[in-house]
């Protein structure tokens, strides 16, 4: 007889969790008051970079190691992944940021002007030197969440907006579980989506800056996501003029044509994070919480889900991020 699993929350953490438990033969129910994936979930606003190496410039070692497996996992779920790597640039006066990044990200290799022109012709005039990390990908988060939802629903996962839980409860509610989880905090993020036919990029580009680092992720059809601020606040609304200005300014610095881009969307939410910005699988009483994905939802949700499912179904203790509070 298959084991019953109830997952609370249908954002990226909850959906990845549902996939892993389904793959292990469990009977899975997902409870999310909002129903289908949408703007209520913090993962709706994500950049969708699968850039474990680049994240290693600031993140702890397990984030990089576990994150490396994410692209394959998403591809296995039928999500389209673009494997064009990540380009990292900095303005002339911020070259020291580029040097630091090169030291801290061993996979980054130097490019000269000709190599930049080869990879991203539209940035050739702006930058004569850049870093490139080859083994990284990116995806479009919203279609990914939606298609994963549809696929799970078609494979027998029950999605309900309310109701009693059955069997083992896995709580993936993000910040909504804050009152249950000591040390969970919100890190506010603001992002902007613009459209311009005048800039073409084949891969995510990071513009390093000592105060306002920017990443820009191409979404196709001239659409670009610019992200993202990181502010120590659990506020989930109210994108400020200052933040949006910083993001737009940075985009304009990357390529002047962004000055004429159409502003499609300004998004804001708060990421659930623990104090070391690494996620946790935490047992409290009968419930298991998988939370704290910070800015690494798409990068780490697969690993978090895989370890949780292995633990519940096969009794294997997670190799990272496990805390037993029973």
């Amino acid at each position, binding site marked *: 007889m298959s084991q019953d699993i109830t997952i609370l929350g249908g954002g990226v953490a909850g959906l990845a969790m549902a996939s892993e438990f389904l793959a292990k033969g469990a009977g899975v129910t997902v409870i999310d008051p909002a129903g289908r994936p949408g703007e209520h979930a913090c993962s709706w606003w994500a950049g969708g970079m699968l850039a474990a190496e680049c994240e290693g410039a600031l993140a702890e070692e397990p984030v990089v190691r576990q994150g490396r497996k994410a692209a394959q996992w998403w591809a296995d779920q039928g999500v389209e992944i673009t494997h064009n790597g990540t380009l990292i640039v900095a303005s002339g006066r911020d070259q020291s940021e580029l040097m630091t990044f090169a030291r801290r990200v061993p996979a980054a290799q130097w490019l000269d002007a000709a190599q930049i022109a080869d990879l991203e012709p539209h940035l050739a005039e702006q930058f004569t030197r850049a870093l490139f990390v080859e083994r990284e990908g990116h995806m479009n988060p919203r279609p990914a969440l939606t298609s994963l939802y549809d696929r799970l629903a078609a494979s027998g996962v029950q999605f309900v907006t309310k109701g009693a839980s059955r069997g083992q409860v896995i709580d993936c509610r993000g910040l909504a579980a804050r009152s249950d989880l000591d040390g969970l905090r919100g890190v506010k993020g603001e992002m902007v989506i613009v459209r311009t036919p005048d800039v073409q990029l084949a891969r995510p580009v990071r513009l390093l800056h*000592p105060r306002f680092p920017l990443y820009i992720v191409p979404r196709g059809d001239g659409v670009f996501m610019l992200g993202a601020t990181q502010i120590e606040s659990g506020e989930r609304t109210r994108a400020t003029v200052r933040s949006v200005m910083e993001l737009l300014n940075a985009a304009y610095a990357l390529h002047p044509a962004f000055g004429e881009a159409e502003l499609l969307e300004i998004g804001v939410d708060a990421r659930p994070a623990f104090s070391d910005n690494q996620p946790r699988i935490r047992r409290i009483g009968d419930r298991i919480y998988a939370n704290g994905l910070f800015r690494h939802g798409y990068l780490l949700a697969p690993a978090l889900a895989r370890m949780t499912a292995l633990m519940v179904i096969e009794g294997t203790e997670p190799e990272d991020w496990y805390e037993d509070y029973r």
Partner: protein
Amino acid sequence: MPVFYGKEVASRMMLGTAQYPSPAILADAFRRSGAGIATVSVRREAGGDQAGQAFWNLIQELGVAILPNTAGCHSVREAITTAQMARELFDTNWIKLEVIGHSDTLQPDPFGLVEAAQALSDDGFEVFPYCTEDLVLCERLVKAGCQVLMPWGAPIGTGLGLNNLYGLRSLRAHFPDTPLVVDAGLGLPSQAAHAIELGYDAVLLNTAVAKAGDPAAMAEGFAKAVEAGALAATADPMEPRDMAAPSTPVLGMPFS
């Protein structure tokens, strides 16, 4: 140990709270630095409101004195408003006053600084002004009520160290009784040691620690350097001289 506005602090290091890879690393850096004062930006990490509460709790758990700052303020009015907000949020009269005059170098606006310092002192604040090493400016600040001076070593976040040794030395000589803190521009522990050797009371760091690959290790490095500098400053260092002076006496060759 330095005394600021009648309050003795247990360390010659002040540490900023911005730009760390994570709050856990921030806390670790504070532990290993032994810093006695944490500077906190009011603008972004608002203290009292619900939204920023988690971060504020973490800062409070550090168990150090809080010095709120007006980082990022470009006008006198903005700085005063921010200071008033800080007083309410953090329940302290201390304010590290920054009035930025130039957005590329983040150089203080000396005119706005004096005006804001006067207004805030009149309003009961205890002002820690972020200033240049200009002697006349510092005299005006003291006249405006400042009992601490915080000249830069170099522009904020550059890590260039002590750019104007003469200026910093002469400031120390002119203000023997006013606590002096090198506020900005330090990148390496040796530079902090140098500042303390010059007789400065303390140093304030942020970027040098927060942006190091291992912030906690760098924080401890700075703590040791500051301690070394303080020991040297009290040990009456030798005067440099041009000719070599053998430190080992050569037996049988007196006065050689």
